[in-house]
């Protein structure tokens, strides 16, 4: 997903999460809890102004 000088062959831009999941993966998704600490951290940190790019010619 992220830029790197040596991206792996597996990485395909625009790939979507797998539809077929193992039992373990399904259980992981069901039993895990929302990461409230990280959600709260992001809410605390993210304060930047969001601007329309056309204002700057972007």
């Amino acid at each position, binding site marked *: 997903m992220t830029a790197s000088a040596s991206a*792996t062959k597996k990485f395909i831009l625009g790939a979507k999460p797998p539809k077929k999941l193992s039992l373990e993966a399904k259980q992981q998704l069901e039993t895990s809890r929302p990461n409230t600490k990280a959600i709260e951290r992001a809410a605390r940190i993210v304060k930047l102004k969001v601007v329309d*790019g056309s204002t700057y010619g972007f």
Partner: protein
Amino acid sequence: MVPPMGFEIIKPSQAFLHPQVFLKKVACANHHEQNYCTQLIKRAAIHQVRLHILANSTDLEIIGFIAISASELKNSPCVTIDYLLTTPSYRGVKFKGLGDMKASEYLVDYAINLVTQVNADIPFRYIALQPAHEKLLTLYRSIGFVPLDKTGWLFFKINQ
């Protein structure tokens, strides 16, 4: 040493979503990254993905960007982080103006916050991503992403 900077998040206009225009403003480390950016801009131009650009608010230099789209994971709506790029000269740099975070860390937190806010109106249960490189696992795990079994994907749960 990077001097103190102010930052803004820029939502690019449709006119900016042309590979040649975009690549004049965004520095890439190599042709792989340029190819990814070219593909991404084409997808952004047809609304398959949205870009959120982190820029220096003084001279409008692009520090990095994150690209996100809507998807599905285990029959639940999710947001996919399609791509994240930090301009080569700012990789590994922590910025005071970003709470002593790297641009990549900030952009992922920006996406988490955005999805959490949208989730109040449109349900999104997960954020998912596929790291391009194993060494990026450390970054994403430190932010709160969890490897999804042996799929090569990571997820971040928003909603129970």
